[in-house]
């Protein structure tokens, strides 16, 4: 589904990703862990097509297409979704309006008919259950005045409605209390299917108790320094990121 080969990327001339290689197949959940500044969010944003990040080397193929050659909206239309670490507030536009616009943009790209607001409400009603939300939230402006937990929940709602093939969750757990974390994780688990995949980016092992990954990768200074099964997360939690740094140093010597 996703094939990243030796990806180099940076911002304003500074290289942040120094050669990332990763393959994700349908049905898999990959966790990417790493200390602050290791390049986790850069990887997520570069994959989604954030214009601030320059790709300086490597290749990324997604569903057989050259991902790096595509506009952000084309990536979304091809089935890629990024749950933002800091979801953007858009005052003045309701959640319902925004989500329907996005939903219809994807349908249009697939050559399907757009839904009017009544039909869309039916779709929405089912999806709201995934994050255990009442419909009132749809009348509020997008993320505007939302609590941190509500913003993350809203990202999962968008994920549920837009049904991407590959979802990247960028530190969706950061700043969440345990109840909010559980809601978000349960949402993701409900959306898991044999034909979709997730990349879960996190700083903490805690989230991985709720979303159990098939693979865990550790990022340090823009490189994948370790990969393993779900137990790697536990080991990392026990030993701390200093251990990773030491490993990374050994690797570069």
């Amino acid at each position, binding site marked *: 589904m996703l094939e990243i080969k030796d990806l180099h990327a940076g911002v304003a001339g500074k290289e942040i990703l120094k050669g990332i290689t990763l393959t994700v197949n349908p049905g898999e959940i990959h966790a990417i862990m790493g200390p602050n500044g290791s390049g986790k969010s850069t990887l997520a944003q570069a994959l*989604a*097509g954030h214009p601030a990040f320059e790709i300086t080397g490597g290749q990324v193929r997604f569903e057989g297409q050259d991902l790096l050659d595509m506009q952000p*909206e084309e990536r979304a239309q091809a089935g890629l979704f990024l749950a*933002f670490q800091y*979801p953007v507030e858009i005052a003045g536009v309701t959640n319902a309006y*925004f989500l329907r616009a*996005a939903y219809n943009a994807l349908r249009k790209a697939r050559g399907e008919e757009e839904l009017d607001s009544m039909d869309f409400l039916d779709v929405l009603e089912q999806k709201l259950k995934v994050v255990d939300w009442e419909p009132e939230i749809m009348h509020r402006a997008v993320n505007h005045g939302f609590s941190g937990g509500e913003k993350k929940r809203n990202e999962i709602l968008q994920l549920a409605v837009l049904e991407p093939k590959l979802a990247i969750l960028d530190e969706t757990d950061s700043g969440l209390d345990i109840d909010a974390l559980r809601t978000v994780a349960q949402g993701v688990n409900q959306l898991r299917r044999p034909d979709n995949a997730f990349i879960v980016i996190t700083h903490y092992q805690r989230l991985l108790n709720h979303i159990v990954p098939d693979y865990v990768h550790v990022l340090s200074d823009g490189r994948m320094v370790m990969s393993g099964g779900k137990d790697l997360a536990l080991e990392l939690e026990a030993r701390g990121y200093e251990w990773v740094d030491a490993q990374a140093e050994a690797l570069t010597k």
Partner: protein
Amino acid sequence: MSESYVKEFESFAGATTAEGPEWLEPVRRAAMDHFARTGFPTAREEEWRFTPVSPIAQATWRSGGVGGIEDVAREQLTPFVFGHSEWCTLVFVNGEYAPALSSPGSLPEGVLVANLADALRNGNGTEILERHLTRYARIEESPFTALNTAFLRDGGLIHVPAGTDLPHPVNLVFVTTPDAAGAVIHPRNLVIVERNSRASLVESYVTLAPGARYWTNPVTEVWTGANSWVEHTRIQRESEAAFHVATTQVEVSRDSHYRSFSMAMGANLARHNLNARLGDQNSEALLYGLYITHGNQVVDNHTVLYHDHPNCHSWEVYKGILDGHSHAVFNGKVFVKPEAQKTDAKQTNRNLVLSDHAKVDTKPQLEIFADDVRCTHGATVGQLDEMALFYAQSRGLPAEEARRVLTYAFAAEVIDEVSLQPVRDELNRLVLRRLNGEA
């Protein structure tokens, strides 16, 4: 330049003296004398620095009796009248009341809604007129107000007696037709809402002649009694070749609430002076505005809030969306008198600039003479937020649509402050149509 107006005034005064009340004659004459002395403002005057009125001053405008009423069919007004037959709607064509196009709606007992020309002629609401008309919009404050006062003839008169709730807005629609080309129109409105009452009005300036060059010079006076609630929505969609120079003067009494929404999309050059005096304790004024400009339009909003008494609250948000080579001017004055302690005033002007050639001049002007107050102001001029654009695109919206959604959001945020749903819906429609390039 003012000689032609004086000459015109003499024949106008001769014709109206016989019909109008006696007290009005010296008021008109004083206004004319004032204008004859001052003439039009020049760009050297601070108040008019960014807004060149020389095209108005140098032209010769026909005034009075433009006609054109019989050419307008009711259906043509559909886009401007909100489609609510229960609303009392007064339609003025080229400045003149058009009874056949107006609808009485349903008004509570005792409420007076009339056109000024008839009221002045037949003595309807004489007492109200004598007590209030021309008492608030001062001729010394603007030559345009002086000119309007000298030539005032028709417009809306609304009187809501004490303890009365208007269930629906009163709709004043000023429409121009191709006959307006080359003419000046001086609409004059008076809105009096007595104590313990609640009222809303919508004042629209629209056109059936999109390319016509004419000049509208309206003045609206609003007086709110104690403990009243008034919402005033103003929609300016003049011909894009027209000039529109308007003054709205508001007097807010004790414990009362006035809120205004001023939308400007039309005219080649538009200026709106909105002056609100918080004339007694615990009164409140909320001023919202939205201007959407393109081409070579110049849109200027000047607002003044007078905090004369303690414990008053004012809240002001004006937003602009500028495209093409257009130019927006915002000037927001807040005067806080020494005795106006515990004043709470906040002013914001935000501009979204969509083109490299559009220009904004924004100037907050706070003059505060009391020490125990909270007064803030802020102004921004910027582009669409890159992060928000990326967010919308990452959800699948093509770049162009993402831009449109975010631009609409910027406008909708301030439109949300209008409390009447049908008015809000209409304003949203107007914005969407403009952003889709349909209007």
